[in-house]
């Protein structure tokens, strides 16, 4: 018997070796050799994917490495370190004799940028964004316009004065250069601001501005490029330029909105194909981006609009696992993209042809700072007249100082044709210098400055049902008071939009009875589910009284206080309902709550949400159902112990807390680029998830 097995194994091994040799034989070049080459090398076949993978691997290993050196990552922002790595790698390649690759613009705009923007747009905190929309738009549009024209004009004047090599730079080129370099870059802003954890208002101001100024940049860039190509500018052309801006901005948003609605509608029907749900989200968003780019509309705005529009509906429709998948994939891709972008920036610096001109470069850097500060201060003065919570001087400083430039500027400059712009190399050098300056100097110093100025940091707020209820309460209250005053503020319109949303849109786009669910209820359910999962993961099996979590002291005192008869009742009900049950009521270990292996097909968490809802309707002695719930009864009975006992808590009115859980487990937020568990977009995302209006 054993001998047979051994022989079979030998035969298999031999067969495998033969196959390998034959395969090797097939792929290698047929030469007139006498023997079989056992081992041959064919690098060309895999070169492209191999190199791409190698770069991505390098980027990820770098990220890993930085977090093993906490000293370094505390002082220097990650983006700086990555650029330095890029410089080193570029230098290495140069030393080896080959030409280092430059950041290809097509690769950048089509592959590296969209994941970052989609990640930003999908998890955009909607409520602060809409509350400050006016301010953000003012900074994005007017601020960028001011920067462009101020820089262009002063640079032109300087070039005129300087003479020499700079004399050939005409006004249009200066304006074009201004338009490329003025735009605040979302990638750089994200990379740096994520690490400093400033308060939500400032974060959304700078970040929102960096996203929305894409429309302005696109229009101005194409405008000036066209003008330079055509050679003549008329008043009509300028007017058309203004029209073009509106078309680009609004068109981009519309394209994104349409794709968002399509994605939401598609997600309504995916209940039987849960596995590919995340794919729809990604594909529709990417298509929105590409479609916008086809028409030279603002791809970034399309992507943001798509993410924002589809998110509330998609999340009501998809399963919990898909939601997690989307979250993690977006974070992963955007993280890798960002790393690659910065490394490539470093490499391109070593590679690109450089024309250094002291005057031009130094004036550019000074101008960037000056025009940004002037723009911010001037605009804030106007904006503060219309804001309820004014922007203080400290806020203005941070907004001005946070205007970082990044890879978008570089790629746009790289796309310029050398025929129309003979000074392209000089521009490139200047832009790279500006990027380095902003990322290194401003990026490194912003953290100590924030501490020095004692700018309000981000509040680490946990998911709180109190806040949700009271916030909604205040919204209603203020809407009513505004009605009394006869004042049609933005709350009025938001309420109208809300009502419209609830009545018509949610019916179409959300499947099943969840379209009728009030926001408060879905928030509460999500919160309960999340904390149940927290409980599982924190493995507090024997410690019902929240021994090792951060629960406040009095909660840890309240231990399990069920009387014996109650416990028997619970056991009886569980036995009746659960098919496979383990009689461990006091210890919530993983085994009690995890599904069985054959459960993979069923959407267990979806059932659990419904189950939990049903359970909380149930009272222990009598299975009384309310009419609204009857429709949603699911036949498969797998109530979880956790929720049945939550229901137990319902029963004990009065002053005897029967069961209390450690409900204040800290959620470990998933940071994108940094490993320190500062509350990042995820906590915001979870809050804003239920504050959409």
């Amino acid at each position, binding site marked *: 018997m054993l001998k047979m097995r051994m022989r079979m194994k030998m035969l298999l091994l031999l067969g495998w070796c033969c196959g390998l040799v034959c395969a090797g034989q097939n792929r290698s070049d047929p030469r007139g050799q006498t023997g079989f080459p056992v081992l041959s090398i064919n690098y060309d076949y895999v070169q492209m994917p191999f190199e791409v993978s190698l770069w991505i691997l390098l980027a990820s290993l770098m990220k890993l490495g930085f977090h093993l050196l906490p000293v370094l990552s505390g002082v220097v922002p990650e983006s700086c370190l990555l650029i330095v790595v890029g410089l080193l790698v570029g230098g290495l390649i140069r030393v080896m004799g080959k030409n280092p690759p430059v950041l290809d613009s097509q690769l950048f705009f089509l592959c590296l940028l969209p994941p970052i923007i989609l990640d930003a747009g999908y998890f955009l905190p909607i409520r602060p964004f809409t509350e400050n929309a006016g301010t953000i738009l003012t900074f994005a549009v007017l601020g960028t316009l001011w920067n462009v024209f101020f820089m262009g004009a002063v640079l032109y004047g300087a070039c005129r004065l300087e003479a020499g090599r700079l004399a050939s730079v005409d006004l249009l080129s200066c304006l074009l250069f201004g338009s490329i370099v003025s735009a605040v870059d979302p990638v750089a802003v994200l990379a740096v601001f994520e690490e400093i954890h400033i308060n939500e208002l400032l974060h959304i101001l700078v970040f929102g501005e960096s996203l929305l100024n894409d429309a302005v940049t696109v229009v101005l860039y194409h405008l000036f490029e066209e003008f330079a190509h055509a050679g003549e500018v008329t008043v009509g052309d300028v007017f058309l330029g203004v029209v073009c801006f509106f078309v680009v901005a609004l068109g981009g948003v519309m394209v994104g909105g349409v794709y968002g609605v399509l994605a939401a509608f598609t997600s309504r029907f995916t209940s039987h194909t849960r596995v590919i749900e995340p794919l729809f989200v990604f594909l529709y968003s990417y298509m929105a981006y590409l479609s916008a780019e086809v028409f030279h509309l603002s791809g970034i705005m399309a992507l943001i609009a798509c993410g924002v529009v589809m998110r509330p509906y998609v999340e009501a429709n998809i399963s919990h696992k898909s939601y997690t998948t989307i979250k993690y994939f977006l974070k992963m891709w955007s993280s890798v993209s960002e790393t690659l972008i910065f490394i490539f920036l470093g490499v391109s610096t070593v590679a690109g042809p450089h024309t250094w001109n002291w005057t031009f470069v130094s004036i550019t850097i000074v101008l960037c700072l000056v025009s940004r500060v002037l723009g911010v201060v001037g605009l804030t003065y106007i904006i503060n007249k219309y804001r309820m919570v004014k922007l203080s001087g400290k806020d203005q400083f941070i907004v001005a100082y946070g205007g970082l430039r990044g890879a978008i500027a570089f790629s746009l400059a790289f796309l310029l044709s050398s025929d129309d712009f003979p000074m392209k190399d000089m521009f490139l050098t200047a832009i790279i210098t500006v990027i380095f300056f902003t990322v290194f100097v401003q990026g490194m110093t912003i953290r100590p400055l924030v501490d020095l100025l004692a700018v309000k940091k981000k509040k680490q707020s946990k998911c709180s049902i109190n806040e949700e209820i009271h916030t909604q*309460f205040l919204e209603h209250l203020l809407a009513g008071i505004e009605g009394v005053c006869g004042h049609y503020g933005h709350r009025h319109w938001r309420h109208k939009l809300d009502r419209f949303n609830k009545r018509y849109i949610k019916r179409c786009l959300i499947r099943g009875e969840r379209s009728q669910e009030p926001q408060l209820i879905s928030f509460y359910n999500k919160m309960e589910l999340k904390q149940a999962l927290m409980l599982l993961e924190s493995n507090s099996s024997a410690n019902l009284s929240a021994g090792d979590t951060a629960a406040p002291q009095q909660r840890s005192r309240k231990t399990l206080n069920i009387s014996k008869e109650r416990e028997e009742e619970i056991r009886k009900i569980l036995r009746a309902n659960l098919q496979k049950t383990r009689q461990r009521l006091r210890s919530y270990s993983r085994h009690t709550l995890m599904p069985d292996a054959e459960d993979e097909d069923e959407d267990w968490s979806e059932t659990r949400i419904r189950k939990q809802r049903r359970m909380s309707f149930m009272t222990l002695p009598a299975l009384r159902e309310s009419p609204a719930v009857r429709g949603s009864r699911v036949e498969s009975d797998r109530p979880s112990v956790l929720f049945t006992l939550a229901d137990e808590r319902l029963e004990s009115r009065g002053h005897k807390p029967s069961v209390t859980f450690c*409900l204040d487990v800290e959620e470990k937020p998933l940071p994108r680029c940094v490993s320190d568990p500062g509350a990042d977009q995820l906590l915001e995302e979870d809050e804003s998830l239920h504050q959409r209006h």
Partner: protein
Amino acid sequence: MKETGFSHSQITRLYSHFHSLDKGENGALSREDFQRIPELAINPLGDRIINAFFPEGEDQVNFRGFMRTLAHFRPVEDNEKNKDPTSGEPLNSRANKLLFAFRLYDLDRDDKISRDELLQVLRMMVGVNISDEQLGSIADRTIQEADTNGDMSISFSEFTKVLEKVDVEQKMSIRFLH
């Protein structure tokens, strides 16, 4: 009108609006006048808001009372602190705003939001489709989160503490046009 802090033009504007609401032309507003406002009719908290305008036990509110209630919703201004150190806290301070909101929950004025009061508010906000038990569990959870002294109700200080991270100054302010 110093205690309300409205400027002269704001008061004039509010008075003309008050006048337009006052269909009975008797210089005071009754409950029916308020109920005629369309926004309040569809607002879940409409009745409570109306009640907030009327002082204890009265059925009419004059212009002074009207303004006094609305003064709570003025935006908070930093330079106001320096103006009048003797007049006590202005009506639109954060604490007074929160007190106003608290009183809307706390109908029986016992300075505590009990479970039943919370349930009533939740029921108004959520509508009729949700069962009592589920609302009850939400109310229990809410009280448990906020309650620090264990009396199963939310006092004003607990209420303030829970909302300390919420930007009340912005959420409870209306821009009264000049």
